[in-house]
């Protein structure tokens, strides 16, 4: 008998392989249909497991809780608290450059809300401390015709934007503390933006400049299709609960 085509130990029998593939496709489709609800339940279980897990390994499972590190730059940029500067310029009466100490001497605000990423993960009750953007804008004196803010970052790549009205909200701040500790390098320290009611890509890490402009200049991810007005639960096609 020929070794190709017919005959041989493996050439007859049940087509189990095809059935397994079809079963996988069925399971995959079913999982994609109900997965949204399942993940919520698994998140709750994993959150309680992670809280008691000394190894931290459970944090690596999908939905295992905690922050995930996203950066578009090639390395983690570093500025020491002494070297750090924040410039405020553009359509303002008094452009300024602030040191970290100067920011910390301004009226401080502490907000405790959830952090919601547009990719789905959420970290509950995360305290941020810093200076409200509205205070910095008042210090600089916004000139007529100003409509928006552009944020630049010392990673050299990232940028973000807010309208003037959004920036004046009492939950939009320049944060220098997270979890009541100085913001770490990996989390965007020493100073990052914290746009509490919006998806976390708006909260630019490694903030180095605020420029007041006459129109909204879309930020980094917004060039790749993310919404400019990134309200949690009301943008990017998502329906997450508000972060309050």
């Amino acid at each position, binding site marked *: 008998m020929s070794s190709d085509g017919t005959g*041989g130990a*493996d050439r007859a029998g049940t087509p*189990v392989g095809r059935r397994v593939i079809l079963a996988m496709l069925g399971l995959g489709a079913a999982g*994609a249909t109900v997965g949204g609800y*399942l*993940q919520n339940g698994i998140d709750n279980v994993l959150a309680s497991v992670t809280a008691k897990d000394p190894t931290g390994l459970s944090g690596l499972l999908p939905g295992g809780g905690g922050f995930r590190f996203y950066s578009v730059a090639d390395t983690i940029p570093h500025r020491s608290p002494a070297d750090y500067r924040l410039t405020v310029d553009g359509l303002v009466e008094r452009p300024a450059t602030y040191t970290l100490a100067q920011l910390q001497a301004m009226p401080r605000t502490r907000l405790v809300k959830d952090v919601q990423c547009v990719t789905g993960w959420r970290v509950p009750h995360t305290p941020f401390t810093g200076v409200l953007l509205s205070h910095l804008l008042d210090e600089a004196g916004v000139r007529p015709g100003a409509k928006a803010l552009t944020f630049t970052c010392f990673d050299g790549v990232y940028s973000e934007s807010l309208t003037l009205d959004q920036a004046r909200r009492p939950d939009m701040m320049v944060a220098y503390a997270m979890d009541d500790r100085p913001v770490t390098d990996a989390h965007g320290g020493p100073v990052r933006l914290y746009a509490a009611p919006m998806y976390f890509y708006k909260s630019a890490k490694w903030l180095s400049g605020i420029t007041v402009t006459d129109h909204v200049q879309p930020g980094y991810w917004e060039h790749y299709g993310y919404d400019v007005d990134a309200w949690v639960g009301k943008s990017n096609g998502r329906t997450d609960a508000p972060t309050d």
Partner: protein
Amino acid sequence: MPLPTDATHTTGEAGAPELLRRFTTAERWIHRTTALLMVIALITAAFLYLPALAELVGRRRLLVTVHEWAGITLPVPLLLGLLSRAFRADLGRLNRFGPHDRGWVRAALRGHHRPSGKFNAGQKLYAAVIAGAVLVMIGTGLIMWFPHLAPLIWRTGSTFVHDWLALLIGVLVAGHIWMAARDPEARRGLRTGHVSRTWARREHPLWEKEQRGE
């Protein structure tokens, strides 16, 4: 009587070839390119997903692009391979479970050895599960890649399936590499295309018998 076409050369008075041809050049390149794409997809996945690794490299946008293209092109080597008759024949062998495959997995888990054909039941199941998993990963991946294609509830569900199935694939591929690491002769089969008859007799006796033209 037709000659066994898989045998490369015959030696000895018994006519038993020392080396058996196990895979053609086309089949070996299908395996290599698929393996390369799979490794790229898994490594980029790890660097996108695990914070400790993500902190090392950053460059999220680049990693996402590489991951997407490695994933979407994963079936291409297999599809091109359908042009090869030998590859199609082996796909047929992987698909079919004969009487000798029944109970093979249970026996293997207990440490017993059951005779198998060119592929044992474990290899057949691995091939089918990976093939199905890759298709599901491509489907869910496309929904995440092009968010405007599908409603939100599908996207959340797709992320759920993609994340957990990625873990399963990682474990399966690690197991696959671990099995290969313990079997130099199996690796030689995929490197040179040939295996020794003694190995074939031990690991795939029904196939070895078939190669003798019996």
